[in-house]
């Protein structure tokens, strides 16, 4: 009896802490989904955390393009209902018309180009403080713990989702981000015998999840949204353990 009540109390406290860190409570599971199916189970309470900062690692140009495609897929859900996204970087090489095929109206993305990376970080922080935005994507190379902590503090107040793409980072230290992703392109899905190139497929790997568990999944994209493959190729620990990361 005493053990049970203690466990309940601890569970409740855990939920409170999660809520403070920007993770949604389990009740909103039905509403807050992003269509990633099994991938979302890796997060606490099984919901993709909005209002937090996510970090994406890309080590080649091809991975960078795949990451952008995956993020555009995420944005299509985050920007539901007329939201606006800010895309901040040192150069614009994203080709807006492609966003349309991922369900995002390209004219709802505002591109901000800064001259130096330090200014990109400043602009990202300013943008994350702004409540009028659905999401902020920023392209960077380096980000240390203190800088990521600043971004995390900004989103905790405004509940904006921050997505940071890090191209070819020299050093991957620990950050205060809710999750660290890596997206790799996989051969496209195509019915046997048909010519051409099919719909895109990615290997989505969660390298780090705060209070969740890591893993690797195969995810495709169709016109309706993400198509998670039935058979997950889990790498991380299967059982739900509270791992302290970041």
């Amino acid at each position: 009896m005493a053990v049970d009540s203690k466990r309940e109390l601890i569970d409740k406290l855990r939920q409170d802490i999660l809520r403070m860190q920007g993770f949604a409570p389990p009740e909103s599971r039905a509403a807050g989904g992003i269509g990633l199916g099994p991938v979302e189970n890796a997060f606490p309470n099984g919901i993709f955390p909005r209002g937090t900062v996510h970090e994406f690692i890309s080590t080649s140009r091809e991975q960078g393009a795949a990451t952008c495609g995956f993020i555009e897929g995420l944005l299509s859900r985050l920007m539901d209902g007329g939201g606006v996204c800010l895309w901040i970087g040192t150069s614009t090489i994203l080709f807006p018309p492609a966003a349309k095929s991922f369900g995002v109206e390209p004219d709802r993305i505002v591109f901000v180009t800064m001259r130096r990376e330090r200014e990109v970080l400043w602009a990202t922080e300013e943008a994350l403080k702004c409540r009028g935005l659905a999401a902020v994507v920023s392209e960077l190379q380096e980000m240390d713990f203190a800088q990521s902590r600043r971004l995390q503090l900004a989103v905790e107040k405004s509940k904006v989702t921050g997505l940071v793409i890090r191209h070819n980072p020299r050093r991957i230290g620990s950050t205060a981000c809710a999750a660290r992703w890596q997206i790799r392109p996989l051969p496209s899905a195509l019915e046997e015998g048909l010519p051409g190139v099919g719909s895109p497929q990615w290997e989505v790997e969660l390298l780090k999840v705060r209070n969740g568990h890591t893993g690797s999944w195969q995810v495709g994209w169709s016109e309706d949204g993400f198509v998670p493959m039935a058979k997950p190729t889990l790498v991380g620990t299967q059982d739900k353990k509270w791992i302290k990361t970041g």
Partner: protein
Amino acid sequence: MERRFASIWFRHLSTDRMAIRQPELREVPFVMATPVHGRMVVSAANILAESQGVSAGMVVADAKAFLPGLEVIDDQPAWTGKLLRSLGLWCIRYTPVVAVDPPDGLLLDISGCAHLWKGERAYLTDIVSRLRNRGYDVRMAIAPTVGTAWAVARFGKKGPIVEGGGEREALMHLPPSALRLESTVQERMHKLGMRTVGSFMGMPRAALRRRFGDQLLLRLRQALGQEDEYLLPLKPVPPYTERLPSLEPIRTAPGIEIALRQLLETLCERLSGEGKGLRTAILKCCRIDGRMVQIDIGTSRATASVSHIFNLFALKISQIEPALGIELFILEAPRIEDIDPVQEALWETAPGLSSPELAELLDRLTGKGTGCTVHRYLPDAHHWPERSIRPAVSLSEKPPIPWTDDRPRPTRLLASPEPIDVTAPIPDYPPMLFRYRGEVHSIKKAEGPERIEREWWMDRGEHRDYYYVEDQKGQRYWIFRSGHYGDDRTRQWFLHGFFA
């Protein structure tokens, strides 16, 4: 208040300018000349040349015939205009409203300015003596109307200052050309024996209009003050300006902030009362060492919110160098637009592109002045990939044509296509493999070709045949061949983008 105007006439503007630049010319007769129908014609002559009978309009060869020592210099009419403008800007120290009066004069609206020089006589003497000291031969007159001041400056013999109500008396003995008339009208008057303005001033207006047209009557009425005449000031005075002098020189950032907030509160109260908002604002700080420093901001949407404008300025306050101290703050709003109150109510309900928070954020980002650019793209009616998008003019601009996704387009497009080496069967098959940055990609799946023609009315060159290909690792690329295969030419292939 009584209106007072001053007219300054530079009698030898272009020759004075040459003499100031080359002092040795002061002692010799010289003329400025321009080619007219293959002959050099005098366009201006200095005093020495004039006194010996050379005048503007004379052919240079004729003038040289009776004055062999005459120096001839090529005239550059553009210089005179520039010089007149800079002289006008110099005159702003005497009055804020200065207008250029081509070809060789300036007009000043001096209403309420002369008392600072202790009277009009001293005011006039100050301007004339300063200009004469610089080497310009000037005449100046002050009168209640522009027309009378102009006439007296050029033709007046009695005195340079015409008191209020004395226009008729002053004009009476001047020739008709003092009224700024067209040369044909002047010639006709001369023929009819009207040698002074007084000789026709009393004639019936209908008779004058029938013989000389409306212009004469208009000029006469303007000179007599019966019709208003407006000057086009060189530096328009912004109507939305606030000034704040400080008793003690301000040297600290908090001091500047207090002054700025005070100025903004009065300006924004006035703006919102009139239903307007500002798009640009300039804060000018006059320092006690006589220099002026200024910072400016711009907003993406008309606003009259004190806190927002203050935040934009706050990013730049550190750029102000107060030196020994600032004694006067001037806040100007040169660009004003109407605020639509209905739209403002809409913003509060719908977040998105029209949200005021987004506009304020973008103002903050661009306002820091570190080379930040903001773009939003709209589709453009071109198939050529680089031209298929164009930057939107404003945040509220809607796409004129719908976005299309019927053709594969890469997520990342290279700014300029990069050449690749390929192994491809001819004539029209996708390559079997290609080499990009030292790495060989063998193509497993491909889609295409999608031929995109160049828009011949915009640029010339070969068309492109695009293929959407996937290599053995599942990486997807957008590659194209430039032009047809043909004859013995080999065609270059390029990589233009990466697919997700």
